[in-house]
């Protein structure tokens, strides 16, 4: 059992010329492999799977597939709307060359796994998207394909069904079958598959262990998103000298590796990095950092001198850094403002230069509501179960 693709191209004619959906892809998948395919919409993922499944014919190159392929492509396709769920199971079994007896043997398991209950005898057109997904998935999984291709089918079921489906898919591939999963959810790519292909413009641009590939892809998406934020928030992101003695050359947020970023996950380490240039000598400078919500409310504000750092006389280039530690802000966009002050002047005249940037915080884990400040680590508590034994909060 294997999948072998050698310099496979798939082109579609368009009004002016041809659109290359899959561009010279060579690929080999061996028995027992679980492969995730990721990439943006239009990257050619679905076309690639259609080629493997035999639903599309390659324009050039060779496709060599050994084994019985079964696929759950776009949801609900393959289900016959006017027939009941039960009838669909028999039809599908027949199409896959199973006898009635063979289908009868797994019928109960399919119905049970799909959690459809009495709805199994209603026409499929009365089903919700999630119900259709569950039925399609259950049907395919019990017909025992050699090569199973799943395209985003998991997203329609609820969280509980997804985890059940994931378990079943693992079970199948451990029996030596091949699993190919197309997904937008990085978490399921990592959880389900050992190997991951990243497609971009019809080509496989990265092929390797899931954790590594998804991380690279995530990084790529982040850069794209940051470009968008930079355009959107250009009115906020600026640097300004109030006093010609000092200018801010750079103000950015950095991650644990020292790379400049704008998007962080709640709980990640964040460093504020400032490069300044003092033209004259400033005897007693100070820095104030503020994090504001977009409606103008200041969430955090720190003054270097109050936090125990006295900046010495400043002349020429200097780098000031402040570590926020683990990011305690909730999912939202924030304006981050850095101000350089002269402590030898009255407060209203103290401002030398200001710079601002934007930080977008994405959620980490399952946090409901919209907290502005998240600080799970500050929580230490214990429980004494009075009548019986001691107990603790985990």
């Amino acid at each position, binding site marked *: 059992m294997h999948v072998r693709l050698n310099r496979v191209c798939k082109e579609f004619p368009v009004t002016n010329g041809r659109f290359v959906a899959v561009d010279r892809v060579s690929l080999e998948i061996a028995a027992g492999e679980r492969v995730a395919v990721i990439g943006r919409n239009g990257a050619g993922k679905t076309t690639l799977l259609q080629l493997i499944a035999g639903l599309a014919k390659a324009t050039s190159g060779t496709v060599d597939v050994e084994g019985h392929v079964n696929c759950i492509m776009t949801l609900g396709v393959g289900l016959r709307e006017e027939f009941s769920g039960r009838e669909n199971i028999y039809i599908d079994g027949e199409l896959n060359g199973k006898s009635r007896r063979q289908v009868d043997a797994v019928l109960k398991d399919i119905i049970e796994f799909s959690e459809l209950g009495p709805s199994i005898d209603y026409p499929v057109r009365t089903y919700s998207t999630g119900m259709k997904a569950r039925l399609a998935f259950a049907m395919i999984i019990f017909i025992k394909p050699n090569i199973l291709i799943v395209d985003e089918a998991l997203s329609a079921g*609820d*969280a509980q069904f997804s985890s059940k489906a994931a378990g079943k898919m693992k079970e199948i591939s451990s029996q030596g079958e091949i699993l190919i999963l197309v997904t937008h959810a990085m978490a399921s790519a990592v959880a389900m598959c050992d190997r991951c292909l990243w497609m971009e413009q019809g080509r496989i641009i990265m092929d390797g262990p899931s954790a590594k590939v998804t991380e690279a892809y995530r990084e790529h998406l982040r850069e794209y998103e940051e470009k968008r934020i930079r355009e*959107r*928030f250009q009115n906020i992101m600026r640097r300004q000298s109030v006093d010609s003695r000092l200018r801010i050359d750079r103000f950015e947020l950095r991650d644990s590796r020292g790379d400049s970023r704008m998007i962080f996950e709640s709980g990640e380490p964040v460093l*504020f990095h400032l490069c300044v240039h003092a033209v004259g000598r400033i005897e007693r400078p100070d820095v104030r950092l*503020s*994090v504001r*919500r*977009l*409606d*103008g*409310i*200041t*969430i*955090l*504000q*720190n003054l*270097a001198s109050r*936090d*125990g*750092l006295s*900046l*010495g006389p400043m002349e020429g280039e*200097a*780098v*000031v*850094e*402040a*570590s*926020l*530690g683990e990011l*305690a802000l*909730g999912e*939202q*966009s924030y304006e981050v403002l850095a101000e350089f002050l002269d402590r030898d002047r009255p407060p209203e005249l103290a401002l030398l230069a200001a710079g601002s940037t934007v930080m977008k915080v994405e959620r980490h884990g*399952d*946090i*409901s*509501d*919209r*907290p*502005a*400040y*998240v*600080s*799970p680590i*500050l*929580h*230490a*508590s*214990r*429980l*004494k*179960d*009075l*009548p*019986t034994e001691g*107990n*603790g*909060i985990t």
Partner: protein
Amino acid sequence: MPLSADPADAAADRADIRFSRVHKDFLIGQFGDVMKNLLGLPCDCPRVRALSGISFAVQPGQLLGVLGRNGAGKSTLLRVAGGIYEADGGTVFIHGNPTAIFEMGILGNQHLTGRAFSDFYFSFRDIPKAKRKDLIEDVREFAELEGYFDEPLLTYSSGMLARLYFAVVTAVPGRVVLIDEILSVGDEYFQGKSFKRLVNMLSRGSSGILATHDWFNAIRLCSRILVLHEGRVEFDGSPLEAIRRYLKPVIPEATRQVFFLNKERLASRVLSYRCGDPLQIRFDVESAIEDDFCLGVAVEIPKLSMIALLGNDKVIRGGKGTHEITVEFPEFPVSYPECYLSLFLTRPRANRRGAFEEIYDQISWTTGASIRMVNEETVQFGDHAVFHHPLCWSVR
């Protein structure tokens, strides 16, 4: 206007907006009934009472929040105030010509460009030509329509129309503004910008009414909130109490499976804190079931519609009996003068049957039984941020 014994008239001489026992009915009969009604002929066709005996007054500089679910009469109230509908009973007084910021967007000539529409609106508001140029520039910049500003309105999406309309009417706010759900226009950035513009407008002395079902916005902007229910005023007063009334129907009843012991006493406490100091709170929870349960701890600052999560879903090993629970904050992070501590007992995430949190019991300012916390130190909000989080600085 003649003074009456209505309580809303107490400050009538100064009020910018005043409703006295206002009624509004809508006919739901046939066309013939409508004609009869228009001609003043006797007609007993069915009516639905959209507003019933509404009385309130809004003082200068005050923004009155009107909260209510769909169909409670919020929009009707605003439209009566704006003179779009005429009241069927009672009296309505509005100081001057109100600025209506309604979601419905723009009526009128769809062939005007954004720029021409702005000019038309400002001329309609009697703004001299010399001033209009700057205002139009302000609208162009605020509405973020880019090239579309010089294209006809009929090419705009509904979001673009709403942004243009918001920018235009807020450029020259009148003394009285009537706002209907406008804060839902645009993305996160635009909403933040709009919010600041509204705050700015109010600080310059505008008064008005904000009708919304999003209490997050109402509480940030309004010093007083009126809760409408089926066309009647259910409550009129402090924002916190108003939101409690408003949320009451959707807050789940406490179960007797896992619950706080001596809840009333626990909730009536006022805790004092110092930002950065350790803080400890101890309470008892009674469990009638063997299952594990979860404790959630949050600090809320309703006035800023801000929540701080200090611990989410701490799983507590179950067992029937009384659990004594101690919650410790090594460094209490809030520097705002006042906040509320909320405690939730829920079914653990893994055991939940649906996507919703299944709450056994809660202590939260939204339920009335709340733990109020007061900062021991006198801090002036504005000099300080809401939270304090120590930073580790370095210089090279």
